[in-house]
């Protein structure tokens, strides 16, 4: 059980990277972005192209860092995929969502458009890479470290939790102390009031998509390192992402982090009693319970 708890923290930190963007977009643009999970998928596959394609062609060393399962190639691929997915998210907004906002379409039409975008990304990945599961490094043995309480953990997993922690700390400092960060928080709290006080909402929207996309892209790569890559991996993340976002309170970044950790741990612990394939179902049941008991989330936010 202690081991499942630790794995839950690992999964939860990956979910957190996705739910941060979801909750920011939900709070600022007020629509459910059903394509957010697929931004994670796209990030994972961009890194796959870099690691197994471009970087091997460029002749960058394939050696691993210590006992981690990756080396310089992945260290370079992570920031590049983050930038690529940030740009993809901004592009989606420009092509699909901005025209709809301009026409004052309802939030449901925007969500519909996002669902379309979700399937478009899935299909692109399926066309380019096919339907099979893939790995960054197939066939590599991934030894585990033994921790007290009989917990087996891979060095990769420790790396994942650390890098997510560092990203969140950076994001926290950005939101807390920079001008742009403060403006973003203000807009997430109350978009109308923010606009009236002269905050450039266009710029805020750009940053929201950029940050949300970059974090989602990183989440996808980390899941690829921890488990595997699959064209529908992001779709599988959709329910935990929304459950975490609603649990933490929509628009509340810290709530999303806590919500994601809760979802990760709940999903992993459930595997002690249920088939692992039921993980999305577990996320769904928890979400229904939140909606019934406390739809505004544990930390407030908008219901």
């Amino acid at each position, binding site marked *: 059980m202690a081991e499942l708890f630790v794995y839950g923290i690992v999964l939860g930190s990956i979910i957190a990277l996705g739910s941060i963007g979801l909750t920011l977009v939900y709070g600022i643009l007020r629509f459910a972005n059903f394509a957010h999970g697929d931004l994670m998928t796209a990030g994972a596959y961009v890194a796959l192209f870099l690691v197994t394609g471009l970087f091997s062609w460029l002749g960058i060393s394939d050696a691993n860092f210590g006992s981690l399962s990756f080396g310089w190639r992945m260290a370079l691929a992570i920031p590049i995929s983050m930038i690529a997915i940030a740009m993809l998210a901004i592009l989606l907004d420009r092509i699909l969502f901005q025209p709809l906002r301009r026409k004052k379409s309802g939030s449901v039409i925007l969500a519909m458009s996002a669902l379309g975008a979700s*399937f478009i990304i899935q*299909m692109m990945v399926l066309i380019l890479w096919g339907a099979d599961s893939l790995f960054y490094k197939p066939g590599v043995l991934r030894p585990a470290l033994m921790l007290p309480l009989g917990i087996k953990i891979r060095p990769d997993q420790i790396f994942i939790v650390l890098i997510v922690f560092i990203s969140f700390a950076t994001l926290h400092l950005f939101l807390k102390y920079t001008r742009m960060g403060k403006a973003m928080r203000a807009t997430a709290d109350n978009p109308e009031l923010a606009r009236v006080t002269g905050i450039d909402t266009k710029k805020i929207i750009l940053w929201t998509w950029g940050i949300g996309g970059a974090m989602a892209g990183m989440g996808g790569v980390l899941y690829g390192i921890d488990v595997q890559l699959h064209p529908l991996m992001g779709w599988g993340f959709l329910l935990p992402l929304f459950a975490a976002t609603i649990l933490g309170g929509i628009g509340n970044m810290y709530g999303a982090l806590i919500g994601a950790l809760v979802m990760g741990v709940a999903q992993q612990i459930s595997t002690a009693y249920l088939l692992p394939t039921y993980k999305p179902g577990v996320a*769904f049941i928890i979400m229904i319970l939140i909606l019934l008991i406390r*739809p505004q989330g544990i930390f407030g936010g908008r219901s």
Partner: protein
Amino acid sequence: MDLGGIIAYLVSLAILAGIYAVFTLGLNIQWGYTGLFNIGIAGFFCIGAYTSALITTPMPTGIYAQYVHQIFGWNLPFIFGILGAALVCGLIAIFIGIPTLKLREDYLAITTIGIAETIRLVFNNEQWLANGPRGLMGLPQPLQEWINARDYNYLYLVIVILILVVIYLAIERAIRSPWGRVLRAIREDEISTAMSGKDIFYFKMQSLILGSMIMGIGGALYAHYTKSISPDVFTPLYGTFIIWVMIIVGGSGNNKGAILGAFVVWGIWIGTKFMTDLLPYTLKARAPYIRFLLIGILLEIILIYRPQGLLGEEKRVSKMIE
């Protein structure tokens, strides 16, 4: 292909388009008239198909019982399958409606996605329920002893069209009644409808249940057409997304548009198959993805440039003033 072959092919196309039209009519009550955002159609599709299959097939006996597991098999006629499918889907709609219909509209969307995914997981993993991933086969077809198997599709097309027409007329009548006007009032402005003394939750619930029951009927019709069902049929793409594209292309809030959309999009979907057949051999395995990509792009274009669809909503005040 000779003329007979072409006609048989068109008949099979029309049957599937007709079944999809049943779904678009169900969705039109929820989305077109009430503004309920149900993106878990695949769940109702799946439940409708499996319920009817279990009701109409006999419990496997002898050697089959070792290979085919199902929770029950009542061996009842087709009509009971249809009714059972509608009933069970209505009950699931109540279950979904209770936690979500009082909240923001997009919570219903997330919940319906969740239920569709969970239903598929359950049918995939629970062998005892309906034979797990292998699904159920050899479903009976209504009136199959009346006509030889080669020409059976003609008869089934008639059955599908009859059911479609009955549903269409029933909805048209309901939507012109005071009840229908309340639904559209909720879609346009919830707060002022509530201020006129209408119980929003109650009307939304009725709309959700009615639409879901019609989707259950669609699922049953599908199951008895293909005669075999397995959980992987009811994916978000085939079970939900394409139906949404149909209603948005055809025109939400217009029953004729909903039916037209089903036939047009199904025609486009089949048409793109002929297109991808021209692709080089190495790309053929990925042809369905290319086709779905095109359907996705079609949806985005319609949403931006023609949100009212091919036929927009007709202005209707009352059946008394026509």
